[in-house]
Structures are given as C-alpha cells and as structure tokens.
C-alpha cells in the first residue's frame, strides 16, 4: 500500500535550510492501522503534509510509493484520486463555499479522475444525510460555508464526514482526536472503524492513548526529531502514556 524509504524533507526558513524529516522509513500494508506518536515539533504533521503533496518542502532524499505509484512525482489532486486522504490538524475555512457543494465537487472531482460518472444528485443527498448523522452534526452544517465559524470539534467532525464520503484507501488522520469531547471521540472512532477493512489502511497521528482504546492499532511508531525511533505493538502506546517520551529518546541516542 504505502512504502516510505529514507525520506528526508527540509524547509527554507529565513534563507536557512532546516531539516525536518531526517530519514523516515515506514511500510503500511493493506488493512493495517498505524499510530504515529511523538513530541510536539517532531515532524508528524510534516510527514502527513509531504505525503499529501503540500508545497513548500524540499524533498532532499528518499522516495515514497503508494499503490505502486511514485507518490512524490504527482500532484495533490492526483494523490487524492489514488485514494489518499488527509484529515487536517487544522481544517481550513473557505468562506462563501457551501459545505455540501464542496463535498460534491470533491467527490465528483475524484470520480472524474477515476473515469467514473458524476454521482446522481439524489443518491449523493441520501448518502450525505446518513453520514452526517454518523458524525453527529445536524443537517444545517451542509448549508454553511466550509468550516467557517465551526467550532474546533465541529471542524474535526466535518473532516470525518468528508472521509466517510470520499472513502479513501489510505486515510491519514492528523490529531483528529485533539479538541474533541468524549462523545465526539467515540463518534470519530466509530466512523474510522466503520471504514476499516482488509483493503483500507489508516495512519493515526495522535498524542493520546485514549483514541487508541477505540481504534486499536496494529503498529505504533514513535517519532522524534524527524525520525521514527521506535516501533511496536499497541502496548507501546500504553508504555508511552505511563513514562512519557524521555526514556526512548534517551535510549536511542
């Protein structure tokens, strides 16, 4: 599904080159759920952004393959069409653009890339009405502008709604659990779990074990300083919760 080999990425900051990802190696197989944890500033969001094709990073070394395609060579929308979805840590507001219209355009954009007919308007409406219930937003959110004036938690739920509608092959959730109340957390988890199947993979970026109680990961990685410094099974997350990051960061150097 996804294979990342020795990925290095840096940014230009005040004419200085700053290395952020410093040799990431990661293989995600179909059907697997991976959790990535790690201290603030360790590069988790950067990794997610680089995978999704955000501009502004220099990829200095390494490569990434997704479904056999050289991911770094194609545009963000092509990556989306291949089935890569990123739930943003900070979902973006688009004033004046109707939320439902946006989703429909996105869905039909993806379908076009895949040489499929646009979805029938009635089918779309039916699907979105049932999915929006699943994420616990009422239907008025469909007619508001994309994320505009949404609370933090509502934005995250809206990300999940988009994910449920777009049915990606690989979903990367960047701290979707941050800022959610307990009910919302369960709802998000339910949504993610409902997508889980043998073909679909998920990468969860999170700071909290809590989420992993609901979405049980196959593998847990710890990222620090732009590298994955430790990987293990779900018990690693429990250990981190108890001991913090200090013990691994210390042991790896």
């Amino acid at each position, binding site marked *: 599904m996804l294979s990342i080999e020795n990925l290095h990425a840096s940014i230009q900051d005040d004419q200085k080159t700053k290395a952020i990802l410093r040799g990431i190696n990661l293989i995600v197989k179909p059907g697997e759920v991976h959790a990535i944890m790690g201290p603030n500033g360790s590069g988790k969001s950067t990794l997610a952004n680089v995978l999704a094709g955000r*501009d502004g990073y220099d990829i200095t070394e390494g490569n990434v393959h997704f479904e056999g395609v050289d991911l770094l060579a194609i545009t963000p929308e092509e990556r989306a069409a291949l089935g890569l979805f990123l739930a943003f840590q900070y979902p973006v507001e688009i004033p004046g653009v109707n939320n439902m219209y946006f989703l429909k355009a996105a869905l039909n954009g993806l379908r076009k890339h895949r040489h499929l007919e646009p979805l029938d308007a009635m089918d779309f409406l039916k699907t979105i009405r049932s999915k929006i219930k699943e994420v616990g937003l009422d239907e008025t959110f469909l007619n508001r502008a994309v994320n505009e004036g949404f609370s933090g938690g509502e934005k995250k739920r809206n990300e999940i709604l988009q994910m449920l509608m777009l049915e990606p092959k690989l979903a990367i959730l960047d701290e979707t659990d941050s800022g959610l109340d307990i009910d919302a957390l369960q709802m998000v988890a339910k949504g993610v779990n409902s997508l889980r199947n043998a073909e679909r993979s998920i990468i969860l970026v999170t700071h909290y074990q809590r989420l992993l109680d609901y979405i049980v990961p196959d593998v847990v990685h710890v990222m620090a300083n732009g590298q994955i410094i430790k990987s293990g099974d779900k018990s690693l997350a429990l250990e981190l919760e108890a001991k913090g990051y200090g013990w691994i960061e210390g042991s790896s150097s």
Partner: protein
Amino acid sequence: MANQFLKQVVNKNYEYGFVTAIESDALPPGLSEDIVREISRRKNEPEFMLNWRLKAYRHWLTMTPPEWAHLHYSEIDYQSIIYYSAPKSKTDGPKSLDEVDPKLLETYKKLGIPLHEQGKLAGVAVDAVFDSVSVATTFKAKLAEVGVIFCSFSEAVQKYPDLVEKYLGTVVPYRDNFFATLNSAVFSDGSFVYIPKGVRCPMELSTYFRINAANTGQFERTLIIAEEGSYVSYLEGCTAPMRDENQLHAAVVELIALDNAQIKYSTVQNWYPGDEEGRGGIFNFVTKRGACRGAHSKISWTQIETGSAITWKYPSVILQGDHSIGEFYSVALTNNYQQADTGTKMIHIGKNTSSTIISKGISAGFGQNSYRGLVRVAPTAVNARNYTQCDSLLLSSTCGAHTFPYIEVKNSTAQVEHEASTSKIGEDQLFYCRQRGLSAEDAVSMIVNGFCKQVFRELPMEFAVEAQKLLEVSLEGSVG
C-alpha cells in the same frame, strides 16, 4: 507556491473577441460642433435635444479629464475617435426582427443573447445596441400591455419627447464631469425604460451593448423612470472584439425612482480587457447615478466588472426621499494589466435613509484594483444609516488593491460603519481543496466564487450562473 497553481488556472481566451463583417455607415473621426449637429440631424431630433447637446459640447471644451483616479493610461486623442457608426442595413430601422440583418442576429446568437422571443432566456426582454445604434428590442408588445415602455433612446426621443425632456439630465446634468459631458454631446443611442404607476414590470429588461467597428467610441445613454409604487429589474451586458488599440466607452445611466418605487440595476461588464501584455482593451469611463426621489423608494446597483483595460465607474444613489434605500454590490476583477477604479457614492439627504455598500475586489497578474467610495450625510438626513464592507482578494504578488473610503457626516444622528479586509488567496485553502480532489483550477474558481457570494446572490437568477462562468474565464493567463 500558490502562484504556480494560479498560473495553471485556465488559459481560456476572451470568447467574444470576434469581429462581425458588416458594412457600417460612420461619420468621419473627430469632434466638432458640426459632428454634434450631424448626429442630431441623423437622428432627426427635436430642437431641445440639439440645444442640449450643443450646451454640453461647448461646456466640454472648457473641461479637462479627471486625474484623481488611481489609473495610468496614455492620453486619449479625442479627434481620432469616430463618434457615430451604424450598421448600414439599418436605414429607417427594422420594423420587426425579420428585418434585422441576419449577420447581426448571428452575432448576438454567438454572444448568447437571444433576439428571438423564444428560446433560452425567454423571460427577458432585450434591447441590443450595436456600435452607436439600437438594432432590436424584443418583447415590446408584451410589455406595452401593462404600459411599460422599453425601447431605444432614439425611439423614445421620437415617440415620448415630453418624458425625455422632463427627465434627461436631471440626475446626471450635462456639466457633471468630463466623460458625462462628452456623452451628453455625442451620445447616439441607448435604452429607455418607463414603468407606470403601480406596475411591477413582468419580465427582466436587459440591454446588450456591443462595440464592433474599429476606432469607434461607444457613447450610450440609459434613462429609467419608475413611477410611484412600480418595480423593475434591469440588466446590462457588454462585449467587444479584440483589437490592439484602446477604444473608448463613455456611457451615462440615469435612474429615477418615485415614491415606493424600486429599481434593481445589474451590470455584467465584459468589455475586451486587452491582451496579456496590456495591449488594447476598452477604456470604460462611465457615469451611473440613481435618484431616490420619492419616499420609501429603493435603488440597487449590482455590478460584475471583469472586462475593460480601464474601468472608471461609481454607480451612485442620491437618497432624497425619506426612508429611501440605496445599495451597491460590486465584484471587480483585474487580471494581467487591467486597472479598475470603482466604487460608489451614497448621498443621504432625506430622513431615515439607509445605504449598503458591499465591494469585492479581486486582483491577479499585474492588475490594479481600487475601491473609491463616498458616503455623505447631509444636515437634513436625520437617522441616516450606512454600512460599508470592502474586501480585497489578491491572487498574485504583483497585483495591487487599494481602498479610498471618504466619509462626510453632517448630522450627528447618523450611523456609518465601515469594514475592510485584504487577503491573499490562501495556500492553505488551495491545498485543502486539492487534497480533496479538486484541480487547482477548480479550487481557485471555487474560492473566488465563495469570496463573491454576497454579490452574486443579488443578481437575477438567469445571470448569476453566467457571472460565475465569466469570472472563471477572466482569471486567465499570467498570474505571478
């Protein structure tokens, strides 16, 4: 960066740049008292019209072009312009559509403007102005049933001289400004609308202006009179062929709303904007003003300005009647080397008058976009209210957005609010849209359309979609 995506945005060309090969009957270039007399003679005008034109012409000779606008262009040579050009086939004016030159019908068909009273926009009556004259007005009979007069200005001068004499120049006097004065001297045609007392005009009225002939200026004049308790919605559209030289368009529009009358005036301005290097394009110097003469009257201007090399235009409302309402909704887009200096004037005179100004400026390429607005509250305007919102969106690092709000309040009970914002199209927004599967091109047009939403929703339904499409097409070319 975002600019690269923006650069990929549609490289569609100006769709309306074709020329119609039709023989025209034109006066020689240049302006003199003789030319003014000749225009009036050809139009078989009554004495009062000729006198009015001559007063304007003589006054114009004493004037100089305004220099205060944030616009740069080389001086216009007023002696090289042709002031009158009419398609030759029209000698006495066609009596019906069947008599209109098929080439003209074809032209309007290509432009998507229906001159047949059935088909796509069957609910819209159209007056088609080609160069200096009106070639056809549709649905006249149907409108006449309810007493609505909708015809070319020339026809109004012949058939309703009393109405013309009573109202012409009462909102924009012939001395008003350099371009309006020039127009008063040489205007050749335009549209005339009269809505009788208590009548709600049963369909949208629309004028479509087309400049075709080379080196020709277009000087049209529109006069709309809404009697007590009447309502009309009026739409104006315009295009021109692609030419390397600049062409001058100096129009005047006067609106008069009496007690409880409402006029909604919408413009989709798509004159040829010039090429990517800034060669050619229309110089659009237009004076539009409405007078809310009656109590509880209302005038709304909605404009979508995407064309022209230069736009100089301030649709305004004089709020004389108590409780009258003025509105101005504007989207102005400048791409490549286009320049726009546009805005409005809201002049509060009556008691409890209110005005709303929503201006959305979009700049791309090397475009320069200025909002210039005046809100004046006279000492008599007790309880006047104004709300102004002025937003600018920048699509490149080489374009400019400027805001020049002027506020003059002479009554302490007035409330005047002004909000302004400038934003660059967000890389975040673009990336977000593209991550969801939208192409860069679709993402930009979606974001821009969202930005303009408040204005688009003021347009008559039939045209809102057209306006969105137009905006997409206009975002062509070098952005960066």
